[in-house]
């Protein structure tokens, strides 16, 4: 008798999970004496730390007032936490710097366009992404420049870059960095893989140079040496100098990200393209690069996060970015109160955390999606 079963069993539902919340607690918090001790220590720490933070940010915070007086404990009559009234009073300065109030619709429009373009580029299933890329990388910068600094063609009054400031400058610097560094980075990454030794070593040298030095030195260099290198009496706008430095610096990092993507594409893809009679250039342009650029989206977003954080360094060379206007705002004698510095930094932290965390989540989401696609393929 070798047949054990005449008919196959139908699948049965799994048994109900044992434990519920109590089981979860036991498994995750109290699985062993050491584990229990860890849990208790952390809980004690949180109990000590969290209430003051919440008191500072919410309960003891001052939400309205016309000057620093409102945020002094002796005036308020209770211990004072964050002085949100200060942020409220300074918000226009923090967002636009000294950009003329009557023209603030222009930065606003710019922010809107940036949001639109970013969404178009980052939403991988969006329609017409090729067209979007052309608009974002070619038409966008020109339009943004006209919009912000003025143009006689569009009938916009000129606004000197020295008046720009705050989040506006932070966004402008980051965007110039990403828009310039992506094409340049792709070019450098391709050059680094070239068969031509001169081109290859030139690209390697360029990439490794910028990756080997701190951004601050790059910004100092752009500040003092860029004007020296240019012919005659050609001067460079004070805002443009760090932009050049940041673009070169970021392109080296972008090149390494793109190179990683190119390396991730199996060799067989290029060989198959060659075997079909495509030229090397066509194989790169039609087969390898489109796949590589998809793989590197998380890397690009992570570079963008780094770039966004690094833009704070332009404040050291005297550009009125968000951090610098924040420091200037908190030095206002009308708003001198004990918790003003902490309030200013808390606000800055929330701003950067919100932007960077959102981007990091997006990068992780794309990464998971790409990984899932990879599994689906085999």
């Amino acid at each position, binding site marked *: 008798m070798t047949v054990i079963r005449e008919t196959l069993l139908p699948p049965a539902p799994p048994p109900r999970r044992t434990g519920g919340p109590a089981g979860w607690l036991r498994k995750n918090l109290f699985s062993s004496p050491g584990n229990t001790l860890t849990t208790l220590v952390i809980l004690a720490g949180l109990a000590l730390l969290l209430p003051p933070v919440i008191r500072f940010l919410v309960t003891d915070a001052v939400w309205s007032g016309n000057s620093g007086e409102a945020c002094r404990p002796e005036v308020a009559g209770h211990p004072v936490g964050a002085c949100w009234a200060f942020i409220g009073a300074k918000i226009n300065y923090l967002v636009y710097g000294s950009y003329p109030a009557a023209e603030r619709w222009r930065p606003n429009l710019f922010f809107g366009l940036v949001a639109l373009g970013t969404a178009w580029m980052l939403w991988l299933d969006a329609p017409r992404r090729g067209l979007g890329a052309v608009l974002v990388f070619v038409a966008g910068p020109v339009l943004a420049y006209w919009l912000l600094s003025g143009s006689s063609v569009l009938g916009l009054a000129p606004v000197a870059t020295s008046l720009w400031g705050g989040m506006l400058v932070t966004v402008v610097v980051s965007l110039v960095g990403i828009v310039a560094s992506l094409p340049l980075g792709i070019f450098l990454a391709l050059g680094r893989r070239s068969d031509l030794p001169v081109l290859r070593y030139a690209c390697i040298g360029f990439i490794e140079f910028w990756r080997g030095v701190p951004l601050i030195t790059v910004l100092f260099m752009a500040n003092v040496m860029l004007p020296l290198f240019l012919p005659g009496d050609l001067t460079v706008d004070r805002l443009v100098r760090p932009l050049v430095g940041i673009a070169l610096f970021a392109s080296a990092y972008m090149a390494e990200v793109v190179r990683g993507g190119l390396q991730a594409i199996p060799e067989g893809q290029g060989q*198959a393209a060659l075997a079909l009679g495509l030229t090397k250039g066509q194989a790169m342009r039609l087969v390898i690069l489109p*796949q590589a650029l998809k793989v590197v989206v998380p890397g690009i977003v992570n570079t963008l996060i780094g770039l966004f954080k690094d833009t704070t360094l332009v404040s050291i060379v005297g550009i009125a970015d968000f951090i610098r206007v924040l420091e200037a705002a908190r030095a206002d004698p009308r708003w001198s109160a004990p918790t003003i510095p902490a309030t200013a930094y808390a606000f800055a932290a929330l701003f950067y955390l919100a932007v960077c965390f959102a981007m990091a989540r997006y990068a992780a989401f794309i990464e998971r999606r790409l990984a899932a696609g990879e599994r689906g393929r085999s």
Partner: protein
Amino acid sequence: MTSPATTTPAVEFLGVNKWFGTAHVLRDVSLAVAQSEKIVICGPSGSGKSTLIRCVNGLEPYQGGTVRVDGHDLTPARIPAVRRSVGMVFQSFNLFSHLTVLENCTLAPIHGRGIDRRAAEARARDEFARLAIADLADRYPGQLSGGQQQRVAIARALCLDPAVMLFDEPTSALDPEMVQEVLDTMTDLAARGMTMLCVTHEMGFARRVADRVVFMDEGQIVEVAPPEAFFERPEHPRTRDFLARIL
């Protein structure tokens, strides 16, 4: 059996030598493949089979001897033309994963040959119908089984109307139940009169389809014979040894 003497051979190797670094991977290989002839190349791994057929379309440079395709020496200038007239199927399919099946099959005709999109798509759909993969046209490679992917890869090569097809272990990366569909496709192709060079370990396929079986070892051709002679009366001890191990 065809008689190669009367017409130009489709592919000809004349004393081909190749080194990887100091490893001598092709040693004085000579072989003439007649028009419409089906050659199966077998041998232990590392014997140079894949390297040999990759020399035909210039994917591997070689350092000595001559390769002729349709009577012309393979020079750097001729490589693009040769690649358009020689189709190749890889062990790992190598479908372009960012393109649909249809786009995979029209990419080279449109961008390499300059055929317009409409004509290229019509041509591709003809081929799909013949290979019974018409319903896959709009899928992405990641959504296909291994056997389907390899049949699409064959269709992709055929869309360039090649005179010669190279198969580099086309069934080695497949699950066992998918091997047959690919071999059937290849058998149909053979029946259409295609010149084929197949590196494969499918000895059943070799018996049914091959005109000649080539046995390679240590970078050289050890024995060439029609299938029945090759399998029934192998002459070289290495061939006998190899057959004893795989059959």
